[in-house]
């Protein structure tokens, strides 16, 4: 099975995000970067599927600036067989359609049987790239996977729905699945795999001109505060009394 895992390197959420005046994306200085958490589920799922099937080849791809290669290296250490870096310094500010297009242009001729992606990115969070990509690659797509079993040409995907419900979906390959929290616990790369990863094929391809953004970000920054928080002070009894009265006042308790 030829598996493609799409990953994105995102800023660690604990970072101090600074959006310079007039900019439409945060500045990258002083930030720590990591693989998008959902994409790690996708890498882990790919490695597990390959192990379960006893065959397969995992390619990991990332569209992004030079730093994205760190994420690709980690994915190789986790068990991917080869990496492709679609180098694009403008990657972080491109919209979902452009990113999907960039990946699809390269991926289409490769003929992957299974494409795994994270459900969304932790920074931009549009959750669109996987859907657009499946469209561009003309694949069936199943989103929000919390369970995934692969046979030679059939996937059984457990989907998380709203309201705590689950659905079981069967789809034949080729297909795209986007991964949700709870699918698996990504492995910690072992030292021999970190060392082996250094020797795995790693290709860097400059992304050419893509169709222009369909969207135009007008403004980015922290929202102006709407409601005011009230700090409840005093001794324990009066704090409790105050909390109860507030809850009642707002009709939050019966």
């Amino acid at each position, binding site marked *: 099975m030829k598996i493609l895992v799409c990953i994105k390197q995102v800023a660690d959420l604990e970072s101090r995000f600074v959006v310079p005046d007039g900019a439409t994306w945060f500045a990258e200085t002083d930030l720590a970067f990591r693989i998008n958490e959902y994409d790690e589920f996708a890498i882990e799922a790919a490695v597990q599927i390959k192990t379960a099937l006893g065959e397969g080849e995992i390619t990991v791809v990332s569209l992004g600036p030079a730093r994205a290669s760190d994420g690709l290296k980690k994915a190789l250490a986790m068990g991917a067989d080869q990496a492709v870096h679609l180098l694009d310094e403008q990657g972080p500010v491109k919209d979902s359609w452009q990113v999907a297009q960039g990946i699809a242009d390269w991926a289409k001729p490769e003929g992957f049987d299974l494409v795994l992606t994270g459900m969304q990115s932790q920074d931009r969070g549009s959750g669109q790239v996987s859907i657009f990509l499946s469209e561009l690659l003309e694949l069936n797509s199943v989103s929000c996977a919390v369970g995934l079993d692969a046979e030679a040409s059939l996937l059984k995907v457990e989907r998380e729905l709203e309201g705590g419900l689950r659905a079981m979906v069967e789809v034949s390959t080729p297909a795209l699945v986007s991964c949700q929290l709870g699918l698996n616990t990504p492995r910690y790369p072992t030292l*021999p795999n970190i060392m082996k990863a250094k020797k795995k094929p790693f290709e860097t391809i400059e992304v050419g001109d893509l169709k222009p953004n369909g969207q135009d970000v007008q403004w980015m920054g922290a929202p102006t505060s709407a409601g005011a928080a009230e700090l409840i002070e005093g001794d324990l009894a009066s704090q409790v009394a105050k909390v109860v009265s507030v809850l009642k006042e707002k009709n939050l308790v019966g």
Partner: protein
Amino acid sequence: MALESTREIYWNIPSGSLPLMYLLSFVATGVMLWGFYRRLKVYQQGQPWVVWPDMGSRILRGLKLALTQKKVKKQKGIGQAHSLFFWGFGVLFIGTVLIFIQADILDPLFGVKFLTGGFYQFYSLSLDVAGLLALVMIVGMFVRRMFVPKMRAAIQPADLWLYLDLGLILATGYLIEGLRMAVTELVQNPELAQYSPVGHGLAQLLYPLGEESLRAWHLGIWWFHMVLVMAFLGMIPFTRLKHIVLTPANYLLFSPTPKGHLDTLDLEDEAAESFGLATPSDLRFKDIFDTDACTSCQRCQDRCPAYNTDKPLSPMKLIEDLGKVCTDMENGSLIDAVGKEALFACTTCSACMEICPAEIEHIPKIIGMRRNLALMEGEFAGEEVAKAMDAMEVNGNPLGYAPAKRADWADGLSFVPVEEADYLYFTGCYGSFDPRSQQVAKALVTLAEAAGVKLAILGPQEKCCGEPARKMGNEYLYQSLAAENIEMFKEKKVKKIVTSCPHCYQTLGKDYKDMGFDTEVVHYTELLAQLWKDFRFQLDKKAQDVTYHDSCYLGRYNGIFDAPRELLAATGAQLTEMSACKEESFCCGAGGGRILAEENLGTRINNKRASMAQETGADTVVSSCPFCLTMMEDGTKNLEGDSVKAMDLAELLVSCLPTQTPTEEK
């Protein structure tokens, strides 16, 4: 005429019996030597033994430790009893050797006899007293083994034979003496008989039997005594008695590295197929030898914070389990034998290694096995630990905070550039990010200012020292963090470093040496104690009742016991020590990378330690480690009864700084 003070060696023994006795001795000695030799192949399963270059000084050290019983005596009470027992049998052994020298070497070859006169009197009395001492001790040991539940639980099948044999050797020894004296001394040389009080008493009792019976009994019991002694010799390698040989032998094998040293693995080694300790073939000669040198005295287990809070780890059992795998000779899995839960429960507090009379090295083995799990399997004490590893990798701290915020705690404080500083204050992850420990970092800056010491910090350019990663077995992550820090230290030309965290202190000061960084590193307690002695700052005395919790890495690992106590005294605080303090301090539970892990098994170590603090009646438990402070803060909150406040020594000192700065007064 006064008879000469001596006795005939082998009195009443027909000369024809002697060759048989010698033959038996050779056989018994042979069995003993074979008993030890047969284990050699077990020890050799491991890495080749590196012969130490300093064998002479090692032998001297080993003899000194064995003869002074220094390590054994650390256990008050039973340790002293052991050394009495040792010397009781020691004197008897020396006595026997002297007989051998006279009867088998000097007398037949040169006709020289030295067991005569005043020396013989001294000899005779010494042996009589030593024998009595040994007899009392063996009975005491037997009673302890049979009636103390903890000892009874660890009884070995051969133990009873061993006590019986030793007891009978001593008893028959006295009987032979009494029988001989009844015939040769009691009447003929009563003055000399005084120098064998026990033999004298027995001789008086036995005298009525008449010479013929006395001689017959003497010969019979002499043979019985000899057989018992031969049995003793033969039993040594197969019973607990083996420690008589293996414990001193283990003193020769000690690692001459600083306390807490761990091998810095060559991770780039292309030939290495596996990292860490997985099977006996990964162990060092000494590691396997350790498993035989263990006498199962339980001292480690008695002190182990994990064992004492119902976790599945006993350092003693761990060594025994490893011993079993090695003895199987099948190169089986060490980790399966010990159990992962036991491995992850260790706080590396080193209480086991500190007390072990046989110098067994538990912690390097535990870390070695953790390394195998971490590096080869990507396995840690829990998911939360794996997350912390990830955070260390991405953010340079295990708490997951943004590296850019590393100096936020220092907002409004003034520092000098590194090149102008007396010390670089390596704040550490807790000092930098943990709100409670940030208070300590600020207190330290205030104290440095009061003492006129110029500090610099690296802020966002500082990274975790790597200690928790290393202790959890993640040597790869440790080395990458260490390399980055060292590069930064070198770039900034750092000369001296002060830390507030004993874990950073140990790592920067000792572990980084293996990575090519050798710079003076001090802990703030040392630095401030010195500055205090140099009158560099003043303190107002405040009467308060405190107890002091020794951090493992400051105390046991680095011997810093006095500096914090001197500073406490300087504040006028009344210090009441906990039952477990200094070398015997009880860990807070956060060492060995466990600060990153949930404590899901057994009861909580910090609660136990907090109740020890409470028992002193002190209002405050003072510590000087951010991990200890974190654990004591939680532990004291869970206490029932009198409340105890947890404080860092730096905070206590700041609270005693005079309101006016002393520098103006001077």
